[in-house]
């Protein structure tokens, strides 16, 4: 737990869901949401990072922002994957991260799993709907 805590949250365990639903680069939401996801790791909570709608374009392979002058945040998803693996492997930490995409969203956009920079669980709308109903804190941007 980071040092600057004010509220008493010791031992509190919650299910967080980060909903990534915006296209990358046209707006900053994808990038700053990613910063939020990275910070959350320090709190060792269960988290589902879910890509729906245009958010699936965030994890499309091959981003090259050079000629637009913008910052390419695609590599950070590799760090997200590592955080997830670390949590999975460390038995002493009670923390599970899931990385999920909605099947209907990638299909509507002509994408398949091979197009994505991350290994993800592909869930149908119905399955995702059930998963959403199990979350305590849902953060969108």
């Amino acid at each position, binding site marked *: 737990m980071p040092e600057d*805590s*004010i509220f008493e*949250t010791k031992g509190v365990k919650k299910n967080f869901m980060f909903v990534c639903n915006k296209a990358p680069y046209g707006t900053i939401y994808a990038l700053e949401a990613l*910063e*939020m996801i990275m910070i959350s790791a320090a709190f060792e909570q269960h988290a589902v990072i879910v890509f729906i709608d245009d958010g699936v374009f965030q994890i499309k392979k091959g981003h090259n922002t050079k000629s637009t002058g913008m910052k390419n945040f695609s590599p950070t998803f590799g760090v997200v994957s590592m955080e997830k693996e670390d949590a999975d492997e460390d038995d002493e930490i009670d923390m599970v991260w899931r990385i999920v995409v909605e099947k209907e969203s990638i299909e509507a956009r002509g994408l398949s799993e091979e197009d994505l920079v991350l290994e993800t669980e592909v869930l149908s709308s119905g399955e995702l709907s059930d998963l959403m109903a199990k979350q*305590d*804190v849902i*953060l969108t*941007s």
Partner: protein
Amino acid sequence: MKLGLLVNEGPFNHQASDTAYHFAKAAISKGHQVLRVFFYFDGVNNANKLSEPQSDDRNIVKMWGELASAHNIDLVVCVAAGLRRGLKEEVLADGFRISGLGQMIELGLAADRTIVFGD
């Protein structure tokens, strides 16, 4: 009940900050506690003390500051989002403080309900 609010958009340009304010006021009047309002993305601009709306319009920056001091609400502006946008101590309005993104996750843990207001 303990509530946590997130405001993702700047004042005036989007209604998000107005809605969050009226929600917070209603919650307090019903006996609930607003632990913290965390300002992220363009939401950091809600803390700009130089904001000077027309005389026939509401002053969103002041409204938040006054609500916070009357009801002990922790108004936190994200340091990273603020740096990018030039919202720093130099222009920070009364009642707000600047801190890290961790304060948002901590709020999610401490509050019974977390509500996001944005675009």
